[in-house]
């Protein structure tokens, strides 16, 4: 079978779902965050595949931006999680109880 | 600047001025407020006198200032026979209310500001000939009322009453707003305007789609109805009036409440005759609820204020009945009762407020024999009660009589029941109230109660009573102005009514 766009998209879709699964199911902030990274990467894969098959570079540029933004976001996010951890000694969603849910 | 603009502008201007008066200048505060309302009232009298009765169907004292051109909103005021009396009544009651506001001792500045804003709003609402401004001014008057009840109100149920009146009246206002919007959108796109005159002319000429009328009319009917405490949406009224400070109760029960009725007559009837025809039977039945149910409830009341509140709701029933009759007599009577009841309700609440001031209670069982102690007050209360029962000589009588004549041709059974209710029930509770408050032995603790002595204090009561009597003896002062306008409305409405209904019309 010839590998086409559809196969790449399927992989990307599954990857997206796995990422979402991590966010929804796991309660550890760090692992949730990894799930979020997976989602971004799923989008990256889809973009690159589309970009290649459409023969158009916009998608790849978008990936470039996404990667950069993700890096910045991770930096801020991890700093935030560490700051919270210092305060509460926990990186668990269930322990975020100061604010009413 | 039209006279009307002055009438509604002075209170608003005074409110603005008061905002900059330091709070310990209490005398100045009161003076400014009184001066402003007095100016309004005086100008209103001038306007009433100068009003050209022969041209009652034309709008007079008109002023138009474009406001939002793209939406067709403009500041447009003017009076014809329909609202000239209402404006006068509003201005008089405002002045009286302002006189009665001396009972407020704390945070006077805010109170007077709110009172003045409310006054301006009320007068604006009745004077506006632009649907948007009509609504706008009404809301402008409503909000201060809520705040005044909440802050300066009395009794244990104050908070509950505040929330209840706020929610009910906002709901009513919003329903009406949607109705008005829908009405606006019924105009063709290029001619859309909120101008009442233009809208009426348009719908008079073009007519409106029947199905549109069928759903816009109930919106307006129930929206305005809630504002007027139409049964069964009336429960807020006694509660709120019971809790409200005197001046607020006077203004709201007396004047602001009439806005809904005015809106029905001014907007709903002329623009949507078909819708009106559809819903009038329903309205006639509902108004029985007002008259009978609320009358009976009033009979059961132990608190004077609640009694007056309920009776005021009951009186609204007559007005609804007049409107429902959809003929010249009925509607003219309805407008007359609106004015008369405005004066009466203001008088009643002013009296009960004064009483509360003196005795700190309004429970009728605890009171008694006050006539000897307070002759002027007693006399005024008796007269108010008589007016409330619809005795001849008071404006109410004239209005109610017209309504019954008008309604008799349309809904005989209803009229009979209503008349019975008005005469019997009204008489029962009014006279009972008079008896238990004024007659009988005077309990020891009320020896301290003082009568209204100074002319200054007597002024509001005298003013309101005088107006009631004036219009009672010379109802033609009003009816001659009202009738031509109503005739036109009824003519248009009748023109489209179904033959089945027209058959019974004698007019």
């Amino acid at each position, binding site marked *: 079978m010839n590998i086409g766009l559809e196969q790449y998209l399927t992989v990307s879709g599954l990857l997206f779902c796995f990422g979402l699964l991590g966010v929804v199911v796991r309660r550890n902030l760090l692992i949730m965050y990894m799930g979020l990274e997976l989602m971004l990467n799923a989008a990256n894969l889809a973009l690159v595949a589309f970009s290649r098959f459409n023969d158009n570079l916009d998608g790849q540029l978008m990936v470039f931006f996404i990667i950069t933004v993700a890096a910045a976001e991770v930096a801020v996010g991890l700093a935030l999680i560490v700051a919270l951890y210092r305060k509460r000694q926990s990186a668990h969603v269930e322990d975020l109880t100061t604010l009413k849910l | 600047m039209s006279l009307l603009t002055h009438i509604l502008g002075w209170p608003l201007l005074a409110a603005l001025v008061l905002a900059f008066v330091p709070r310990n200048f209490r005398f100045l505060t009161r003076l400014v407020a009184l001066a402003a309302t007095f100016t309004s009232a005086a100008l209103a009298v001038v306007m009433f006198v100068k009003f050209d009765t022969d041209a009652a169907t034309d709008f007079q004292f008109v002023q138009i200032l474009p406001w939002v051109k793209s939406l067709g909103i403009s500041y447009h005021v003017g009076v014809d026979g329909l609202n000239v009396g209402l404006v006068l009544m509003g201005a008089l009651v405002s002045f009286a209310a302002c006189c009665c506001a001396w009972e407020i001792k704390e945070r006077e500045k805010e109170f007077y500001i709110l009172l003045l804003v409310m006054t301006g709003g009320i007068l604006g609402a009745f004077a506006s000939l632009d649907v948007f401004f009509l609504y706008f001014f009404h809301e402008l008057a409503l*909000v201060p009322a809520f705040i005044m009840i909440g802050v300066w109100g009395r009794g244990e149920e104050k908070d509950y009453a505040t929330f209840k009146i706020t929610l009910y009246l906002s709901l009513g206002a919003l329903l009406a707003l949607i109705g008005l919007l829908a009405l606006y959108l019924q105009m063709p796109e290029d001619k859309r305007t909120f101008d009442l005159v233009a809208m009426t002319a348009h719908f008079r000429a073009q007519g409106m789609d029947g199905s549109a009328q069928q759903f816009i009319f109930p919106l307006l009917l129930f929206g305005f109805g809630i504002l007027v405490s139409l049964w069964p949406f009336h429960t807020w009224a006694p509660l709120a009036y019971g809790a409200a400070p005197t001046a607020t109760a006077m203004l709201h029960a007396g004047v602001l409440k009439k806005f809904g009725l005015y809106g029905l007559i001014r907007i709903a009837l002329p623009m949507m005759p078909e819708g009106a025809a559809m819903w009038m039977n329903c309205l006639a039945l509902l108004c029985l609820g007002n008259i009978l149910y609320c009358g009976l409830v009033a009979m059961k009341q132990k608190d004077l204020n609640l009694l007056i509140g309920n009776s005021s709701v009951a009186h609204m029933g007559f007005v609804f009945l007049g409107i429902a009759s959809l003929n010249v007599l009925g509607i003219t009577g309805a407008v007359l009762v609106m004015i008369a009841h405005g004066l009466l309700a203001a008088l009643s609440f002013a009296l009960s407020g004064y009483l509360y001031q003196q005795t700190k209670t309004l429970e009728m069982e605890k009171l008694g024999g006050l006539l000897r102690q307070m002759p002027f007050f007693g006399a005024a209360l008796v007269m108010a009660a008589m007016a409330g029962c619809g005795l001849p000589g008071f404006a109410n009588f004239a209005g109610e009589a017209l309504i019954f004549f008008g309604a008799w041709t349309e809904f005989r059974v209803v009229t009979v029941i209503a008349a019975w209710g008005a005469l019997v029930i009204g008489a029962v509770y009014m006279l009972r109230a008079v008896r238990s408050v004024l007659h009988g032995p005077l309990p020891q603790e009320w020896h301290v109660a003082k009568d209204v002595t100074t002319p200054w204090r007597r002024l509001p009561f005298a003013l309101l009573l005088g107006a009631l009597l004036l219009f009672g003896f010379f109802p033609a002062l009003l009816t001659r102005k009202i009738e031509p306008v109503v005739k036109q409305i009824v003519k248009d409405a009748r023109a489209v009514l179904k033959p089945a209904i027209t058959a019974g019309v004698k007019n």
Partner: protein
Amino acid sequence: MNVSLIEFEITVVLLGMGVLLLDLWTPAERKPGLGLAAALSLLLVLVATFLVPIPQGAAASGFGGGYLLDGLALFFKRFFLVAAILVLVMQTEFADRIASGISEFYALVLFALAGMMFAASANNFVMLFVAIELITVTFYVLTSFQRGRTASLEAGVKYLILGALSSGFLVFGIALIYGTSGTMSFPEIAAKIKASHDLAHGALFQLGVLLVLVALGFKIAAVPMQIWAPDVYQGAPAPVTAFLAVGSKAAGMVLLLRVLLTAVPDLASHSAKLLMTVAGITILYGSLCAIPQRNLKRLLGYSSIASAGFLLLGISALSLNGISAILYYLGGYLFTVLAAFLVICIVTRNTKDEDISVLAGLHQRSPLLAAGLTLAMVSLAGVPPLAGFFGKFLLLKAAVESASNPEFRSAYYTLVAVGIVGVIISLYYYFGVMKAIFWTKPTGDLSPIPLSLPARLALYVCIAGMLFLGLYPGPLLDFTDGVVKAVFN
């Protein structure tokens, strides 16, 4: 490449960097003054925006078509500038509650402002993405700025996780849209939809649009992406909450407008019912959940959800008047919400608490603050004569107008009914606040609250704004109408 197009944004970014630099040479006690300096500079920028001729007809675009300077963009740029100026003043009042890094606090606001201004001009998905991310990432930091408070950090983390989740949806949605249409640019997508009917009906394309909408819904706090709002509003420092409520929401809104009505207008009209449903649920959710709230900021958080619902109501009207109403509503909302937060910020300065009861006796402690908050509440409740009323009036009008389409008549009327119910419910809790101000028995401190000159000015501006927009809506309405006609017709 026309650099003069982005001169305002460049100025703002440079200003932010300038604040960061000046911080090095400013003694600690004078650092709060930097905020005022920045606010003044922004004022100059604001004035400058009025000296630029508004592009008529074909708007000026640049940078490969990704940046668009039209009336809509200009409107929102001014909007954001005003918001930022007021927020900066608010932050100066807030300065003593931030242990360190006050200059960074200002700088971050400026950067967020730059992000919003870019968002206002975004014309392709790449710009949309980077602008949104610039705003969001800045707000992660701003939200958790009070590191001493656990609530602030928790709010930051919640915003972070949910924000990143929405970013995930956003990029995946963008990927799908890009993949099916082959372009990132809004107008080109619209052109392709017009050219080929299949595109707009492709399931993949629709899924992409849906995902993007979900992500934008997060920014404006619409159901079902609203869960972050109450917590974050409560936990974040008051000025940040204000900026979040006004700036971030408006940025989401302008992007939503651009995506929905520039890129996929046909799809928008197909999904009117969906939009209506979301709007209705959002209104109800926000209003109902606000009732039991005792924390002021949380209360405003829920109220902002309800406002998002009203904005969506305007979008779902799918008419020019609806969009114009949204712009107008936002204009009023700007002054209203900022006034409310300004007062809350100052009142809660000395108390750790943000419970509604701290307002007790406010009318004695500071009549101006009491008046400001009261007016804000009245305006939020949509009562004349304040700005909020006219905004809601226009929104409801637009919805009723759209009901003339017989296909959707009942849907629109249901939505309007829901809107009315929302307004009624909201009256209840807004009056709860007013009740606390005026007739709750004060228990604690009754000393007058000092008010600095800038704060006083800011409050006057807000009140004036509310009153002006409520009493004299003509100029702004004409402006928004013109803008909307030029952009979306």
